[in-house]
């Protein structure tokens, strides 16, 4: 486990976490976050994604999809290896801290 505080914000951690299971459209990621109470306007969400792209943590591209017989464009994302690594480090960091907290509580008791 890394002893340093993860270099990810909680929002970046959530997004990278959602991308761990594979590529997803931006709209889906945004909807999932909203379902858990993390509401962002579409431009603010894509601003977050653009920064993740600039930092080399995710890759983004456009794809044509068909909705009710009409072709529309959507932006899709997948985590880059660097993003996956950082997310794993952050998860391990938080897990380790949390488990130590639990141990401490048991020993206090």
């Amino acid at each position, binding site marked *: 486990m890394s002893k340093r505080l993860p270099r990810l914000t909680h929002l970046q951690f959530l997004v990278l976490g959602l991308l761990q299971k594979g590529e997803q459209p*931006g709209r889906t990621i945004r909807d999932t976050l909203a379902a858990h109470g993390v509401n962002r306007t579409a*431009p*603010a969400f*894509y601003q977050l*994604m*653009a920064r993740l792209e600039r930092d080399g943590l995710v890759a983004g591209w456009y794809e044509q999809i068909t909705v009710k017989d009409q072709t529309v464009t959507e*932006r899709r994302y997948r985590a880059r290896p660097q993003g996956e690594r950082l997310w794993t480090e952050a998860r391990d960091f938080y897990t380790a801290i949390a488990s130590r907290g639990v141990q401490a509580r048991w020993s206090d008791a």
Partner: protein
Amino acid sequence: MPSTRLGRALSSLLPRALRRDLFEPAVHDLEAEQLRQGRGPVSFGILVLFLECWRLAPVEVLSMFRNDLRHAFRLLFRDPAFTVTAVLTLALGVGANVAVFAVVNAVLLRPLPYADADHLVILKHRDRGTGITKEFIAVGDFVDLHARQEAFESIAAYDTFRTVVYGPDEATDASACSATPGLIAALRMQPFAGRNIDANDAAPNTPPVVMLGYDFWQKRFGGDPKVVGRSIKIGVTPVMRQVIGIAPPGFRFPAGAVTDVIFSKSAPVAPAGGRKNGWVFAAARLKPGVALASANVQLSALAQQMEKEHPSENQGSEYFAVTLRDAWIGDTRPALLLLLGAVGLVLLIACANVANLLVARSLGRRQEMSVRVALGAGRRQIAMQLLAESTALASVAGVAAVACAYWATPALVSLVPTSVNLAAAGDIRLDRTVLMFAAGITLLTTVTFSLFSGLGLRRDNTAGRLVSPGRVSTGVAVRRATSALVIVEIALAIVLLSGAGLVLQSFSNLLSTDPGFTSDRVLTLAFAVPPDRYRDGGARLALHQRVYEAVGALPGVEHVGAAAVTPLTGNNWTVPFDRADKPTPAGQRPPDVGWQSASGGYFRAMRIPLLDGRYFGSEDGPAAPPVVIISEAVAGRFFKGERAVGHKVRLGSDLAEIVGVVGDIRRAALTDAPRADMYFPMEHAPSTAGGLFIRTAGAPTAIVPELRTALRAIEPAITLRSVRPMDEIVRESVQVTHLALWLLGLFAATALVLAAIGIYGVMSYAVRQRAREIGTRVALGATPSSILWLVLGQGARVALAGTAIGLLTALAAGRLLSGLLFSTAPGDPVVLSAAAGVLLATALVACYVPARRATRVDPVSTLSAR
């Protein structure tokens, strides 16, 4: 790209990054969602997204700029040669400016340490006849001005002098300010402890009181608060005075002097012997709403009124007020502003040099930028990146500059001679204003450099084509811009060089000026004895005689004398000159001449030549009839074609015989015209304080220990101050010019080196750019010398253009220096030619190295290179 027309139209109104990263993916999501829900057009939703993008724009721009900045710092580290050169050049330029600005800020800009200081003024007196301005005014005139004026809230008389504070163990020398209570009121001083001096303290028959300066209280009494209320013995003639208060920390009046003790002074009364019988300094506070100009109109009207009422005493007497700051800054203001201007030129040269470096660097990065453009970077992004690079460079240079200034400011202050009235010398520091100034000029350089960074990229980036590094050629615009920068550098360097040259010439003229006396091997000192022990003239004369005999008997002493005024210390005391046989017509005031009280030994010690008659001697004692000696200029003016010796002059109700004529001396300063002076015999009215002038056979300071012993043997209570050779006083009198010479010389040398680096850089780059052309010439039969001359010719054209512009600018700017110049014309052709010669020679040397390199160009390799 949004599918609707509105979406596309709004998209085109957004900056590229916002459009690409924020707006378009959000619009696509919106369009898909509307389709899924089977709704119609989505105009309102798109408009909301558009506005949201603008709301997020500042954060996005800052975020991108932060990335650019990070990249820029990485670039700086990757190119250490460029970074070190540019940062050092800028740090020196900006640092020197910040250091000089710190002085300007403390002296000219920072508020004075008094409440509402803009309303405080000093009254001055100008004599129309002699043109001399004095800081002190006649007591009779002060009394009338005080009674009649309506422009001032309070008007006060004050005086400053040295005194002695006695303690249980030892006596301490202290600087005193004696002031009428009006001064304390005008300054609105709040005491640190105790109370202020008030009107009751100045009333007759009240016990004498004193306020102590904060530092003096700390140093002499260890900050003991119980001192307030205690009585202490103070004064050359010791008097017990009760300490009534402690002045606030940092209080000083006048600004340049430390104020150790403050006495109350009773309000001046009209002197019995005549209006001009006694002088005081005067300060005042303007009434609220009264401007300085209107106060001066009133003072002028009052002066005219007094002139009409007392023509025999006030004819030609003018009074005016100047703000406290102007009075104290005096002639320091133009010198400081000149210095700031000169150091500003150094910064401009440094900036031109760095701009040249940036242009050269940007040309080398054209391929990199073309790749960026090909990959989709827009103009704005490229500009942002260049701005980030300039910001990174300027911020590193800014920090280095502040570090330079931190070191240079105390060094600069230590160079300023103590004789210069630098009112706030103790407060010169890098405060918030100075740091803001540093940030301001750093910002200015950042913006300028961004423009120059883009110069070499503009065309290729627009086209967006990839340029082969082997085939980079310099555009005409870029070549012209870099040459123009070097021309500007050379022109500015010429201005600084000629400025330094003019001051050097002036300094040389000053040093070769004959002051009318010989300062070499003369020791001077100020002495004082307790007046209560030498109350009558006879006792004082006896003391003087004993001093002359004892000092004269010391080994190595040739002559010794005493005088009230030490030459070249700015003194301009005057006295009316009135021939007894040709008196000034009734109702007119006799013209003024310089006043000096001196013993016969003074003329011998200073080697002021006797032209006629005799020097003063023991026969001119207190009981003898009054006599005077006049200087050559007085004789020439008032006794044209006659022998002055034997004539009598009127001194109030007495007549004094002229017994000698001596040579003129430059009394107040070397820059003064030789002064018409009248000397009064120290033997006739020997004082208990004055200056001793001792001519020695060897080094004057060698006799100091024996001198002290000899004088203390005569009078144990004698105090001796300012023991120093006359040569030192002469040097100090030209120190402002010397300082200006030193600093201008330093700036000029820096400018010369920077200009040489600039022209070297440009010519080196030109040779690299023209390598193929030179290779072709060599292949076609050009000889090395013709190539050498080709390159030298190109450099010489740039140097000549810069020199021509510089000379014209120097001619115009020379007038700004005229206040500092002595016997030197601002457009002195010799100086200007020498400056041009030095710069052209330096430029040619700087061109020679790249020119030699050009002669070694191998045509085979350059022509075959891609």
